[in-house]
């Protein structure tokens, strides 16, 4: 107990929020004029600068992405001869580390950080995110989804925090047990299916896995209308405001009602992997999942080959993770080159085929994927049509309120 308190105390020393600085360019270690860089002259300016730097440090917060980045790094080092120092990190801890370093005015330990899409509000408010309009100057971002180019989940970032990987929450099922005719298409049908097949549907606890957090927000999107829906999708709400609303609002009664009925006949699980494991054990036939994680599990033979995915009307949450350059990064040019390659068509296609990692590129058609992979992805008739943007602070608020209003009652 003491040890735990000590650890928390030590971590917390670095946790106080820093005042927000929003200078035009906040990059500290620049030896070229970034405001002069355009898509056209990008390589002329950046490549020599990057080669002069010689090395670039990259953080990856997503455990399952290690092999994808290894692939990218191999390509990057071969093409530019710039050494990549790679580290897997725990997102929450790395964020706090960067915030502390920023506050102290020291150089950042990382140049290109692959971070959670939902971390932008925290990181930007602490001034950690370097003010670089990546989506406007990186040549490989010329086909970037305009909806994501300037803002993310309702928060403007000016191109400094571009998603390079999209992922989608979904309903996954073992087609050996769920016949095509029985497959639910709406949230009402899902509840009906669960009532007909008690304890065969797995719902991830929202606070323990994004597939559950995405699901509860999707349920809310489906059942809320009018002003209630307006608040639900109000991205200007802070986390505290969202929590207060979720705890108090009458608007969410249909959501709680849905969960009360659903959890009477469905299994609440301890995490994304927990749900998948139970489906693999044939204890569950259907559950809330992440599309890309399913692919990893299938490749590792931890899910049956009969596993399939679908999305419910009127949409389920899609999210993504971003690359950004910290304001105090030391090797900005190399970081720019690395991110440029990460969003390149070749690597994005490789990532989709191997990791079921969706792309923010608009030119990545599904004919680039082998049929063998395609059957494990969301079918084209539901994706991207039924993909709804995530609002993680609201998801978390709903998850906490669910614990309070339904689970603990």
């Amino acid at each position: 107990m003491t040890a735990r308190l000590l650890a928390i105390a030590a971590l917390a020393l670095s946790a106080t929020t820093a005042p927000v600085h929003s200078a035009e360019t906040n990059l500290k270690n620049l030896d070229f004029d970034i405001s002069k860089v355009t898509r056209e002259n990008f390589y002329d300016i950046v490549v020599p600068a990057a080669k002069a730097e010689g090395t670039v440090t990259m953080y990856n917060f997503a455990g399952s992405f290690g092999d994808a980045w290894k692939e990218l790094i191999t390509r990057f080092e071969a093409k530019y001869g710039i050494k990549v120092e790679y580290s897997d990190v725990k997102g929450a801890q790395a964020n706090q580390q960067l915030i502390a370093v920023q506050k102290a005015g020291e150089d950042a330990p990382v140049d290109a950080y692959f971070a959670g899409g939902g971390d932008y509000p925290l990181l930007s408010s602490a001034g950690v995110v370097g003010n670089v309009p990546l989506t406007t100057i990186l040549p490989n971002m010329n086909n970037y989804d305009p909806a994501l180019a300037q803002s993310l989940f309702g928060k403007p970032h000016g191109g400094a925090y571009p998603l390079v990987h999209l992922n989608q929450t979904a309903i996954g099922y073992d087609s050996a047990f769920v016949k095509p005719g029985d497959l639910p298409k709406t949230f009402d049908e899902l509840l009906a299916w669960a009532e007909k097949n008690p304890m065969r549907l797995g719902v991830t606890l929202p606070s323990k896995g994004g597939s559950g957090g995405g699901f509860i927000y999707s349920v809310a999107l489906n059942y809320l209308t009018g002003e209630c829906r307006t608040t639900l999708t109000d991205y200007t709400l802070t986390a505290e405001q969202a929590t207060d609303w979720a705890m108090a609002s009458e608007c969410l009664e249909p959501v709680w009602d849905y969960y009360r009925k659903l959890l009477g006949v469905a299994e609440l699980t301890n995490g994304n992997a927990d749900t998948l494991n139970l489906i693999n054990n044939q204890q569950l036939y259907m559950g809330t999942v992440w599309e890309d994680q399913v692919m990893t599990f299938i490749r590792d033979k931890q899910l049956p080959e009969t596993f399939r995915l679908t999305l419910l009307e009127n949409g389920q949450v899609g999210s993504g993770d971003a690359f950004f350059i910290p304001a105090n990064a030391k090797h900005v040019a190399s970081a720019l080159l690395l991110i440029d390659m990460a969003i390149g068509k070749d690597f994005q296609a490789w990532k989709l085929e191997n990791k079921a990692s969706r792309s923010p590129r608009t030119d990545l058609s599904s004919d680039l994927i082998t049929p063998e992979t395609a059957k494990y992805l969301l079918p084209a008739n539901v994706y991207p049509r039924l993909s709804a943007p995530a609002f993680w602070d609201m998801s978390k608020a709903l998850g906490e309120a669910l614990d309070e209003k339904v689970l603990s009652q």
Partner: protein
Amino acid sequence: MQAMLRDPKVQLALLLLPGVGYLLVFFGGPLVSALIGSLRLDDSSFTLQWYERIFTRATMLRGLKTSIYYGVAPVFVSLVVSVPLALLIRQSFWGRKLFNGLYKLPMAVPGIIVALMVIILAERGGFIDRVIAPFGLSLPKLVRDEWGIGVILASVWKQIPFMTLIITSAFAGIPEDIRHAARSLGASRLSTFVFVEVPLAMPGITAAILLTFIGSMGSYAIPDIVGPPSPRPLSVLMIFEFNEGRFAQVYAMGMVLSLFAVAVLLAYYALTANIGVSRTKGDE
């Protein structure tokens, strides 16, 4: 300076410094900073809201109850196994040496490994289920079950060696003569055990109870992985709050858990003050 050093009060302070200073710096310091942290808002103003949340939110209150439950229940089950085990180990039997070495192994296994073992072995449709399925048998729900049976069993598995070790030495600390005296005074084996050995081993047994209670009350990995998604014990909720960056809330929960542990410790001291006999005196 010299004169000051000769002052007995100064000398005493200097002599106490290494011990008390260590406690102050490495125990008191974090505790006080956690206490202060738990009473502050982001703008450093005083608040009780983090404590208020613990005692008004249903999730938190259930978390506190669950923490206590996950602390108490395994202790009782472990006790029921450990006392007979401690007595068995005292006897000589075939393979005793091997058993003596083996039974301590779970102590070396980290909680998270135990939790993953339970998931792999005892999950429905897991390893054990598949092995016994051909015989028409199936495991009851041990993972994510409402009563936390899986959590309790995993904690028990991990606690038994530690508890047995302490209880064994508590019994071993009772001089043989005292047992023999009881027997010669007409007490059967059982009466000797109940009226003489158990009371004399009580300080050791209660220490074992206390340590395992505090250990399992604070354990995180097992309830997080094996336990039901709801209710979650405070330890699991603490990590959740920590990941959310609500450090003040984490501090407040830590303070409540620590206070509870301290209260149990004080109760322990009060209870054992009367049993804490010096047994060595008789052997002087």
